[in-house]
């Protein structure tokens, strides 16, 4: 039985992780700390656990690990505090907005002898696990090109304030796919070109809401990726993760979250896609719980988080310089 605490509910994924912890038979949601006490108390009530206002007191408590879901720029200090308290850590993505912070976090956790994981639930999505197995089986021959998307609706709130997020949609919606492709292809990214901007929310926010990346992976694989907060408010779902793999032996298409039933409801007057299938967050949280129990590294490590951040940082550099940038 692993006791897991949650540090901040700033990122809405914390709610899903809390529900997963409550659902897993070998885990216990041990408590919540949040620098927003109102939010923390409300969440503690919702998920049937206790709220602690002081961070040092919280981290001194009886817990094996913590899940960090604060605003991106706060990841580093919270990870450091948890590591020094000897807790295993699962950090929401991006691990950090900068390469420097990401490397520091990895070093701090290594020194403290605690496991550090990055929350990339795509690795636990059965659709993507199946795609990886098919690609790795060689059934599609040599993969020459890949076209990807990770679209979403605009999350607003602190996500669109770069002082707290460290970057807009290009960062937020590139890291998942960058990590998933590294894992599926077992190759690293080498170069990136990027165009980004605020194309759709000029009236409501400042940060970029769409980035198009042209990347290269080891072996010269040509990859395009569109990271966006472009889905209309009236869109029937939150967004997507899609990939088209072009191989010498054929083509494989993934629309990772296209497990849905169409719902037409007269009260909402809006078509909705109700998801079915498995919850990838459950696999992610379960992996972390096991890592805490066995005191081993989570499957998706801090280094994986760093690799994804290296891609987004290089993409930002490319968008500013209008040149292809080495990763």
């Amino acid at each position, binding site marked *: 039985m692993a006791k897991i605490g949650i540090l901040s509910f700033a990122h809405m994924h914390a709610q899903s992780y809390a529900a997963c912890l409550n659902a897993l038979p070998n885990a216990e949601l041990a408590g919540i700390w949040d620098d927003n006490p109102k939010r923390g108390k409300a969440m503690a009530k919702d998920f049937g656990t206790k709220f602690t206002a002081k961070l040092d007191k919280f981290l001194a408590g009886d817990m094996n690990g913590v899940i960090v879901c604060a605003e991106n720029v706060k990841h580093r200090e919270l990870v450091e505090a948890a590591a020094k308290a000897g807790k295993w850590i699962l950090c929401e993505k991006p691990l950090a907005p900068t390469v420097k912070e990401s490397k520091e976090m990895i070093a701090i956790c290594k020194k403290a002898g605690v496991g550090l994981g990055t929350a990339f639930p795509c690795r636990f999505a059965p659709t993507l696990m199946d795609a990886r197995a098919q690609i790795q089986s060689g059934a599609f021959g040599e993969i*020459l*090109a890949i*076209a990807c998307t990770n679209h979403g609706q605009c999350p607003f709130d602190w996500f669109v304030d770069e002082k707290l997020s460290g970057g807009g949609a290009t960062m937020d919606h590139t890291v998942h796919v960058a990590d998933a492709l590294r894992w599926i292809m077992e190759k690293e990214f080498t*170069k990136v*070109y990027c*165009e*980004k*901007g605020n*194309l*759709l*929310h*000029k*009236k409501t926010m400042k940060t970029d809401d*769409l980035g*198009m*990346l*042209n990347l*290269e992976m080891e072996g010269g694989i*040509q*990859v*395009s990726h*569109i990271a*966006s907060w*472009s*889905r*209309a408010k*009236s*869109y029937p779902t939150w967004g997507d993760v899609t990939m088209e793999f*072009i191989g*010498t032996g*054929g*083509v494989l298409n993934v629309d990772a979250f296209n497990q849905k039933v169409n719902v037409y409801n007269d009260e909402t007057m809006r078509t909705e896609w109700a998801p079915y299938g498995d919850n990838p967050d459950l696999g992610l949280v379960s992996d972390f719980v096991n890592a805490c129990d066995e005191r081993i590294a989570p499957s998706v490590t801090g280094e994986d988080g760093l690799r994804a951040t290296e891609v987004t940082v290089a993409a930002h550099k490319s968008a500013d310089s*209008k*040149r*292809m940038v080495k990763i």
Partner: protein
Amino acid sequence: MFANREQKVAARPQEALNVAIIGCSGMGRIHAEMAANCGLNIAICADKSKKAASELAAKYGAKAMTDGLKAAAHKDIDCILIATPTPTHLMFVEAASKAGKHIFCEKPLARTTADCKKAIAAAKKGKVKLFVGHVVRYFHEFEGMKAQIEAGKVGEPGYVKIYRGGMFPGGPKGWFANYDMSGGVTFDCAIHDMDWVRYVFGEPERIFCQALLKNEPIPIDYSQSNIRLKNGMIATIIGTWAHPSGFQVKAEICGDGGMIQYDSKEAPISTMVRDTGDGPSMMVPASPVAESPYQREWEDFISWVHDDKHQPRVTPEDGMIAVKMAEAALKSSATGKPVKL
């Protein structure tokens, strides 16, 4: 929805124009049928292959020729249709212009921007109309999307993505697999969407592109363009000649007030033929319309031929700028740098 459809009455020719079809394989055959539907007289069918020329000529009671240059200047014709490999377009344009024949040229107008300039100059000098077949402008679904955008349904557009393609055309020995001639899927297929993006959203600022252009072990091409427009919009254009079978077009336009999506796989008719052991089964999705987009191109061209004041939907300069964009994309792919336009 039908009430909104543009009711167009084709300008009927006072006297049927006589046309020479230059290039009698796939596109040449489609254009012959469309021209005939518009009441034109297919007078000559010319192709390097005597068989191809004769077969099509027999269908229309036309004269078969193997010399396209002679056909383009023949006394019995008023206009020509060029559906030959791209690098040969210019010589037919020049021959027809010199002889005073109007020209309907399949896209791309020519293999280089320099050749496009020569083609436009030749047509101007010969005082003939030069029409370029950027047929996507005439496709009903693309007209439908344009109308929705113009009606403000997406608010102010900020992003557009178009995906087009399917299997590699013409097989490993065909001219499409000679990338120096065809320019691959970027130059021959994605050019449609580069033209449409410019037509609807405005001029391009710079293009970055990755294109495969592979011939080993088999011809495979896949092209991923990242285009910044002068108005700040970003456009993604993906062209594929990498699929084992089929053909698909997808489009998406995002604005600050909504989105539009289109997918040709959502067709009103799809069929599957039972495999009886005689051969593979087919699945052919179809979206029939009363008047083919190719025929609408012809009507536009014919109206222009008969009336100097008629503004065709595609100008020769449009054809040239589309070539310029595709050329820039290929240059970007070769150099790994964005290319300014």
